[in-house]
């Protein structure tokens, strides 16, 4: 169930030299929720603070130390020219760059703008649209720079964040699950909301890691961890249709926090299966 991350991580040299590695936390287009997951590690926060030098984390402290940094945690997606340039600079200053959360790893809910009339939206939403400078798209960090590790979720799982930091500090392998949310759901002995209640659920195509949180509260999974290792989106769509969901409602379900990820996958799978 737990698996080695796809990207082997080269741990910062500073650890070998017995120094506390420096940690920076950066924000792009996002809600700050993933950064708060770090601050939410109440019991472990002091242990974290004791083992890393928190060099840049405006959400938590006004003290700022110039780079380079051993580890950068990056939250949010790229939505402006300014941010597209800023992430290049952060990459240059970071030995290890870890993206945290669905905005950073998949573009976030703000990627709903992609392929739509952004100027039209701006003119409706803002009194002075002429003040707004924005890109037509919201894109994941990995579209702009090399990313060493992605932690998914909206928000991320704080257990995964702590395991990442522990792996980093203690130089051991990090294992993150790549299987479906169903595996975690069954392990915690939650009754399947789709089979037993007829509730639409993206659990079977979504990557585990949250501990099957939503189904444990009788809610369907909304896919915030993005696609699992081998998601069969067309087959799930068929079943959601049998549960009474209209096509447009299935589209909405698949287009939330990982806006384009599921839809693109589905199209690829449909194309693969079409008779040539």
């Amino acid at each position: 169930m737990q698996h080695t991350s796809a990207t082997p991580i080269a741990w910062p040299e500073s650890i070998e030299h017995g120094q506390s590695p420096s940690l920076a936390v950066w924000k792009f287009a996002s809600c700050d929720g993933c950064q708060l997951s770090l601050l939410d590690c109440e019991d472990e926060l002091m242990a974290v603070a004791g083992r890393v030098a928190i060099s840049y984390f405006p959400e938590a402290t006004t003290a700022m130390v110039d780079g380079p940094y051993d580890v950068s945690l990056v939250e949010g997606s790229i939505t402006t020219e300014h941010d597209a340039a800023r992430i290049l600079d952060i990459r240059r200053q970071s030995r290890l760059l870890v993206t945290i959360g669905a905005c950073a790893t998949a573009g976030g809910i703000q990627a709903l703008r992609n392929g739509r009339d952004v100027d039209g939206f701006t003119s409706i939403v803002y009194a002075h649209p002429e003040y707004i400078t924005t890109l037509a798209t919201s894109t994941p960090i990995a579209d702009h720079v090399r990313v060493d590790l992605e932690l998914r979720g909206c928000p991320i799982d704080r257990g995964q964040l702590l395991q990442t930091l522990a792996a980093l500090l203690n130089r051991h392998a990090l294992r993150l699950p790549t299987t479906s949310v169903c595996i975690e759901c069954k392990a915690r002995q939650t009754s399947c909301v789709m089979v037993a209640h007829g509730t639409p659920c993206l659990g079977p195509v979504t990557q585990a890691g949250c501990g099957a949180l939503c189904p444990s509260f009788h809610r369907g999974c909304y896919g915030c961890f993005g696609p699992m290792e081998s998601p069969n989106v067309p087959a799930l769509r068929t079943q959601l249709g049998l549960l009474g969901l209209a096509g447009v409602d299935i589209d909405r379900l698949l287009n939330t926090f990982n806006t384009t990820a599921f839809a693109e996958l589905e199209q690829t799978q449909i194309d693969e299966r079409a008779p040539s």
Partner: protein
Amino acid sequence: MRRWLEVESGVVSGEPSIGQPGGQPIDWWVMRAGDLHRFISLLKSEFDEVIGPVAVDGVIRLRPIESADDLPTGFTEQQETGSYRLLETGTSLRFSYGLGPDSLKSIVHPPRSPVWTMRRHDGTLIVDQALHGTTTRAVIGARACDLRALDILERTQTGGQHTDPAFAVHRQGLFLVAIDCSHPAPTCFCDTGGDGPVADHGYDIAITELDHPNGIVYLVRVGTDHGRSLIESLHLAPAPRTFLEHRDHQHRSISREFIRELPKDAAKVVRLADHPHWNDVAERCLTCGNCTAVCPTCFCTDMDDIVGLDGETATRTRVWDTCFSMEYSHLGPGPHRTSPAARYRQWLSHKLGTWHDQFGESGCVGCGRCITWCPVGIDLTAEVESLGRPVEANA
């Protein structure tokens, strides 16, 4: 006539020694609702934990119970491929339901099981093996298929050269109160895939809930000395012969309810590795692993290591794994069962085919859990049937 009916008709028509107080030992006792309360109170005093069927979150599940009031009185369920719905019957029957997702596997081979903790002390690493405790558990509501699945699971975990200590401890503390199945789900096929719906071995106590015209009664028989001593301490009345005849009638009527069957050539056709039908299943299969989680005999596990932030402690936990996971087959160069077709084929061909080579029997008991709890309703009996059809020349 099917095997379980032969066993049953032997019991009923073969002049069983029903026995009388003060004479022959009693083989069949009768319990009324009040006796059932006394019985569960007795179990509560005898065992650390009593687990039984409970209607919770719209599903009948095996959970710790406090008294007979927790049993799913008046509930039943409707099951189909990929669907389960809890229903109220308006009766006072307590065990008139088909299988839920929990089997005895959840108890003897739990989803997460501690293996060891490790800590650094004076420059050395100290490993403390996990203690699995000696909790004793009485489980009420195991069906015949659950008992058979426990046998199969036990052979996989303790039958070979190496015994799994956690399984052995959990199994040793288990006291089984079987309830004869009176309500097979449409997804079950134990009459062709297993040994049938009536418990004939593997229990300490077995109970038939009898929907008798004069009221609901519980017919009790015992399978072990421990079971006998508990039942005798309740001073129940011996069961009248008419009740046993009624029980036989009730069981016979169940045999007409099975609509699914496992084809006889299952063990052979699942080995047709190049059959095009594997790709057909793969188009529907989500590779989510629900089938292996609810299967009462699927036993595969992985290890999950958690290291403390301080690097001074680590814990290893054994967790359920699934052959539907790509990483399950990760060897040096990477996963070798990358296609969903290869993973479904691995599961089914082991369960119904190579399990025979490995353990001398099938790994399936016909409980149908994988059919009900598959989110897209894949039915292994139908897949086996398709695999048995001749491949068309141009397929």
